């Protein structure tokens, strides 16, 4: 049973293969520890079938051969196999790294801030991976705060400028003595008044 199942699996080494060989060696060890009744052949030591010694069977071996007709489970097993592979591809290195960090570096301990010392922004976190991320990947919270305040200041200045522009438009439209809302008209000096110069033309 074990050999046939192993033959069906592809030759990619997976965790299942390792588990199966462990199981097989454990079954052999258990068989050696507790020997079955006489009349049991080594073939069914693995399957742990208890033979009946009162009725002598004509056929020894596997048992009746059956041709099991069932729908193909190749696609399901392929999916699970690929899922396992791709999950473990990054899962195992991440697990090793996190375990190593927790074992060999360990979490930080709380301490009082020494006099006259300004701690860096990553020294306010406990876990070493959080400290690393804060040191290398993130900006310091002070910088983020200042960036946000700068954005707010810019928006405030834009809003103020828009409000003053609206006010100025209103004034320019009302009084009309400013540079805006001037409609260009023709020069009065260009008008030829000669047809109207004398009244009896």
């Amino acid at each position, binding site marked *: 049973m074990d050999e046939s199942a192993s033959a069906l699996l592809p030759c990619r080494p997976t965790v299942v293969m390792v588990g199966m060989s462990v199981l097989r060696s454990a079954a052999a060890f258990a068989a050696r520890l507790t020997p079955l009744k006489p009349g049991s052949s080594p073939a069914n030591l693995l399957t742990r079938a208890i033979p009946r010694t009162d009725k002598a069977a004509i056929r020894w071996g596997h048992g009746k051969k059956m041709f099991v007709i069932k729908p193909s489970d190749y696609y399901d097993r392929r999916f699970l196999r690929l899922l396992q592979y791709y999950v473990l591809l990054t899962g195992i290195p991440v697990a090793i790294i996190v375990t190593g960090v927790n074992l*060999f570096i360990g979490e930080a301990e709380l301490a009082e801030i020494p006099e006259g010392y300004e701690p860096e922004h990553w020294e*306010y976190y*406990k876990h070493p991976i959080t400290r690393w991320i804060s040191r290398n990947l993130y900006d310091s919270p002070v910088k983020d705060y200042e960036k946000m305040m700068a954005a*707010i*200041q810019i928006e405030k200045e834009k809003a103020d400028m828009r409000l003053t522009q609206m006010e100025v438009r209103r004034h320019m439209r009302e009084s009309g003595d400013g540079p805006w809302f001037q409609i260009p008209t023709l020069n009065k000096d260009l008008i030829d008044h000669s047809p109207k110069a004398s009244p009896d033309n």
Partner: protein
Amino acid sequence: MPADYDKDAYPEPPRKTPVVDKQTALPNPALILTKVFYYAVDLPVTTFRDVVDSIRSNNKLVYYHQRFRRVPDLTECQEGDYVCCYEAEMQWRRDYKVDQEIVKVVQERMKACQQREGDSYKQNCAREIQQFNDVTKNYQSRYGDLGAYASGRKCLMKQKERMMAAQAQSA
């Protein structure tokens, strides 16, 4: 591993181990079991922890508790001063977090007291229970139904409602 509780806070009574007066030749099963547990479980676990601690003590890390400066409140900000509003809002958020932690600490104290006293906790833990009730009532009245989008402004409005209700009641 979390630190052990403060031994001076809850002092244990001095132990009174009796003198061993064995009168039979039969082995003591309790002694055998404790020795088995010690050698099979306790000793390997302690040695592993000592090994890991000795590796860890080479690179010791420290972290500090950050202290923030107090900035002007929302009530002390001008009408259009959005930067001041932002700083007040951040300060209010930090204070909100601190208040949540305070409630958690008081709750922890009450739970520890209940666990210690056992069945007579209603009588012996009256002080802790009273403190917990006060703290939670105050927290509820201040931050109670602000919701997920709570902000300093909404909390201020809630305080205004509270003051109005108190004034209407006293008048």
